[in-house]
């Protein structure tokens, strides 16, 4: 080969792809074991979220009757000019319910977004 002439360009390529990407939604459509795992994880996440909200409700609101049953004297306590039962049951309960609901909606939507992201990723064969 004479000096000075640049070597011809060589295109570098990988082995040709023989498989088309397989969307993960197919796993669910075909009811494979893996699809079952995906769906199960979403269900568990959402149910756990619901259970936590109900648990918090039981701990806060649910404890009030027992509290007043054990300590009836609490009914006569005055807080910011209102009797304690009125303040708790007539006013503060409602912001609490809204707060629990708002927190749940945010997290439930996040779970669904994560699930959608997970399933939208395409997966080539051989990939872990």
């Amino acid at each position, binding site marked *: 080969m004479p000096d000075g002439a640049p070597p011809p360009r060589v295109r570098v390529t990988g082995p040709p792809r023989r498989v088309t990407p397989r969307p993960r939604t197919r796993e669910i459509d075909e009811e494979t074991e893996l699809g079952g795992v995906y769906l199960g994880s979403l269900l568990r996440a959402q149910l756990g979220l619901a259970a936590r909200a109900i648990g918090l409700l039981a701990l806060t609101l649910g404890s009030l009757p027992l509290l007043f049953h054990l300590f009836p004297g609490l009914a006569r306590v005055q807080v910011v000019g209102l009797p304690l039962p009125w303040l708790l049951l007539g006013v503060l309960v409602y912001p609490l319910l*809204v707060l629990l609901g708002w927190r749940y909606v945010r997290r*439930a939507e996040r779970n669904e977004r994560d699930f959608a992201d997970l399933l939208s990723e395409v997966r080539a064969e051989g990939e872990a």
Partner: protein
Amino acid sequence: MSGAPGVVAVVLVTLATLLIGTWGLRFSRTTSDFFVASRSVRPGLNASAIGGEYLSAASFLGVAGLVLTFGVEMLWYPIGWTAGYLLLLVLVAAPLRRSGAYTLPDFAEARLGSRRARAACSVLVVAVGWLYLLPQFQGAGITLAAAIDAPTWVGPVVVGAVVVANVSSGGMRSITFVQAFQYWLKLTALLVPAVVLIGVWMSDGSPGSRLAEAGSDWSLPLATGGGPGLYTTYSLMVATFLGTMGLPHVVVRFYTNPDGRAARRTTLVVLVLLGLFYLLPPVYGALGSVYAADLAATGEADVLALELPRLMVDGVGGELLSALVTAGAFAAFLSTSSGLSIAVAGVLSQDVTGRAWGARRLGGVTAFRLGAVLAVAVPLALALAMPNVGVARAVGLAFAVAASTFCPLLVLGIWWRGLTDVGAMAGVVAGGLGSGSAVVWVLADGSASGWLGALLSQPAAWSVPLAFAVMVLVSRLTPHRVPAHARRFMVRLHTPEVLELDRG
């Protein structure tokens, strides 16, 4: 007793309801419009409509009267009616919308693949709906009698006629606008007088409650009677927290959301709207215990919210405020009755009037209209026939029945693949018989004290777990009856709509 302002208020509310209903008619074309407003109602409007429909006479007049008569423990009612929506939000809102069914019987049939389960649910929806409509009509009679001295049959007849006209002319689409308007009307009708009355109370030097001083029971947020009292309070919480999701007129609203995410957001806005509204009735109860304690003694506590402005403010001002409350109360009867009638009419038109009878078969919209007439006529006739049944307590029991039947069906149907049609029906029957016998016992004015009385008059705390247990147990015994499409149905209920999946 007032004359002119009250009459004008009732006439105005009736006219506005009819006008908005007619206006909504312009948008109603298809059967889908009639049943579910073609599933295109945005969260803000839909939440107002749900609030308007849900806040019945029991909320608008009943809570204030109950607080005056029985004390602070009655605050658990509005709390339960609001918390019920939180439970509905976290357990059923989005999946129920995604199920794609029109009514509760539709859900049962789609999930369980059984015509018999559907029929059982249809009967139950109609029963709970009528049980709930009856006191609405009776309350309308009492209110008009107190506000404008009308005979007691006038209220039920007026409410029934307006509801049939609206429901049968425009269906769900037009009712949505009417209900949304009525939420804001009800809020205003309690808020404005409440602000004025609190002002009056403060300028009087903020006198303390006469009832709270008289006895400590009134100010304790528990039912009286030690252990049974504590049980009664907790059982009431179970009934209202879990019963809301099983009320027919509540559930049918969720099908009008565009998708599952919107259903959740709608429910959250409902929580806000209900929380806002329920701040007000206790104010009337508390002020009533200062200014109108004798109403409780004479058994007229139900009209407390109507009478209080007149008692506390002299002259025209008091009359006008009372007229405003009357307007709100009337809106409460109209909106709740409309919602219930829609739900019952929907079920009747699918399973009774829409079926082929001999060679004849009615079209979708005609069947719906006939269903609406039936849905209103039966409880209206009952309300006229027995104006004095102790139904105020039976409304509370409607929650217990719903909590013991539809709640387990929905929760297990949505979250547990193993539910079978046989299991579901066994659980519904067990819960329905348990809580239903309590309804009969209360309506028959049975009396028992101590634990037996508490267990019978407030059954939810045992009948709900019973229904759940029977459902799970019988389903486990009949695993071969798990429908083949159960897993596909779970995909439909729980996966977000953005994903392209085979939803069966």
